[in-house]
């Protein structure tokens, strides 16, 4: 079986629904979406206008699902979508879009452009026009369980280290626990302290938890490349493990699209509701705080700010919890401009960071975040997405910025008032 234009166009036809039709019918070409997209604002290149990235999908909608469009196609007046066109659109759909969702917040007629990009990627991928880096990451995810090729042995090594470093026991395959803890490849490789921090906090709160040997990876390349069939397989591994272990709640780690994949797309991919809850680690931490099971001590004596990961805040709805937590320990917490659900993307979400072809563009796009930080004038930035951390760290290096970047869960663990 091979990718083909026909499979691509067929996928376009499958994903078009009433919202998509309403969105395309309403677009008045006002261009405001471009003003909200960091890939446009930092390059000035109009081809990065969000609605423009959807042009092939729009034409399929018009020609297949509208009366006038069908008539035009019948009399040969319709411009068909070609393979060359999809090839040309690949950088627009994958490199210049992190599915951050700002355009969806801004469009005056109410278009959820982000939702449509996600749908359009189904056709792009089926037609063979997903970028190489993402294809590789997806292959590794399916075949080895992690987009970075991280295997269980690596995880085991990190478990040993964290048990020692944090002085905790890290259970594996424990049944009937309160929580199943997942991680993303970035946490396993770059920020293993996340695991230790979570363990310490949960132990302190008197909660039971476990890892699963068969589902340790939360990152979902299938969502990023936009192939629901593959996304389903990846989510399915977590669902099976969680239901086999009969956990009450699965904790999505500090990774943006992992949360989107499991919490919001998961049940729809699987075609059924789960037998367990799904929460982001920040939700769990805030739940514990409000129920008195998370007590914090000490404070950070420097001004700092919070970078909202797009999939957590704007597309996930978890934007008050990090602030509630930070206010406990950061008296000099300051918001950057456009805080909360209107915050700007780091530029690397939605598969962009796995896509080498997109690196130059991503670097330019980071200037938006750079401007936000510089305007605020603080030297410490806290965030809660491992992908954001990697992307921002690389960019800070590139732009020679002397900024300290911290993970929120680790910060909370550091200030834990242990009983």
């Amino acid at each position, binding site marked *: 079986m091979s990718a083909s234009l026909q499979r691509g166009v067929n996928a376009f036809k499958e994903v*078009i*629904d*009433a*919202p*998509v*039709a*309403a*969105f395309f*019918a*309403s*677009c*008045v*070409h*006002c*261009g*405001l979406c*471009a*003003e*909200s997209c960091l890939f*446009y*604002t930092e390059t*000035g290149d*109009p*081809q990065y*206008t969000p*609605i*423009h990235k959807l042009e092939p999908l729009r034409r399929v909608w018009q020609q297949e*699902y*509208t*009366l*006038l469009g069908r008539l035009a196609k019948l009399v040969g007046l319709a411009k068909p979508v070609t393979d060359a066109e999809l090839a040309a659109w690949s950088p627009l759909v994958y490199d210049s879009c992190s599915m951050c969702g700002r355009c*969806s*917040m*801004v*469009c*005056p*007629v*109410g*278009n*959820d452009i982000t939702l449509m990009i996600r749908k359009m990627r189904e056709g792009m991928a089926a037609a063979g026009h997903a970028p190489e880096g993402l294809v590789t990451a997806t292959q590794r995810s399916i075949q080895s369980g992690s987009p970075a090729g991280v295997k269980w042995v690596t995880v085991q090594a990190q478990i040993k280290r964290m048990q020692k470093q944090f002085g905790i026991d890290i259970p594996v395959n424990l049944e009937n626990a309160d929580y199943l803890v997942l991680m993303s490849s970035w946490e396993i490789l770059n920020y293993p302290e996340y695991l230790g921090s979570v363990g310490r906090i949960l132990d302190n709160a008197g909660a039971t938890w476990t890892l699963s040997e068969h589902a340790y990876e939360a990152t979902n390349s299938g969502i990023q490349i936009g192939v629901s069939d593959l996304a389903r397989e990846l989510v399915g591994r977590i669902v099976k493990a969680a239901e086999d272990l009969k956990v009450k709640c699965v904790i999505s780690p500090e990774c943006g699209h992992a949360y989107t994949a499991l*919490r*919001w*797309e*998961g*049940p*729809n991919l699987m*075609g*059924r*509701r789960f037998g367990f809850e799904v929460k982001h680690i920040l939700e769990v931490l805030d739940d514990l705080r409000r129920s008195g099971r998370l007590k914090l001590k000490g404070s950070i004596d420097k001004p700092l700010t919070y970078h909202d990961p797009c999939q957590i*805040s*704007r*597309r*996930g*709805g*978890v*934007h008050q919890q990090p602030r509630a937590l930070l206010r406990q320990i950061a008296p000099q917490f300051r918001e950057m*401009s*456009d805080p909360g*659900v*209107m915050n700007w993307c780091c530029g690397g979400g939605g598969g962009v960071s796995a896509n080498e072809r997109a690196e130059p563009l991503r670097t330019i796009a980071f200037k938006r975040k750079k401007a936000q930080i510089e305007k605020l004038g603080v030297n410490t930035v806290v965030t809660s997405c491992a992908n954001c951390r990697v992307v921002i760290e690389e960019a800070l290096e590139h732009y020679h910025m002397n900024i300290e970047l911290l993970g929120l869960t680790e910060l909370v663990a550091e200030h834990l008032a242990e009983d």
Partner: protein
Amino acid sequence: MSGLELLTWARGPGLVLAVGICIFGVILRLIEILALGRQADLASPRQNSTGSGWRTIFTRSLPPPGMLRRAPLTYLGGYVFHIGMAIAVFFFVPHIELFRGLLGLRWPGLPNPLVDIASIAAIIALLALLVGRLVDPVKRLLTNAGDWLAWALTFVPLITGYSAYHHLFENYTLTLAVHIVSVELLLVLLPFSKLFHVFSLFIARWYNGEISGRKGVAS
């Protein structure tokens, strides 16, 4: 055909034709869009978010934080045009009589000088937006023949209505007839152009707010 003959046609068969085609087209397209349906969302919503869709229908009319500064012409031009046109269309007494004839509904009108100011403001806004569309690189990339047509379909009724009211041309009857015919052209093409956003934006905003509201984000 004389001005009065065109006027009588425009008030008679022309109106019937235009309103008929418009209603036909609007209903067709609404069903065409809605009948595609969407899969039920099996993910449990974060909270009870009923009303988010309806709320977004209203709130989406306001610029999100930081955007007004980035695109002042688009926002301000858009507001002045839409509000000015709405005042001219719905609060000019002769127009209210038209609606009374069509729908049996009536409401109080505004004094003619106010309607006049609103019309001028709308005309100026449309001209400014036209310039914007010609100059801004994003709009230039996006714009196609349909956009120019939609602009003309909207501009001509405003300018002919203004001209008729002020007797700017010698043949008032003909100017009035042209005004009504231009509105009828607008009605006929509305469902089949981007002007359909008049109706579809309510659906789009509703979906947007509903999808976002389930996640606990007011959009």
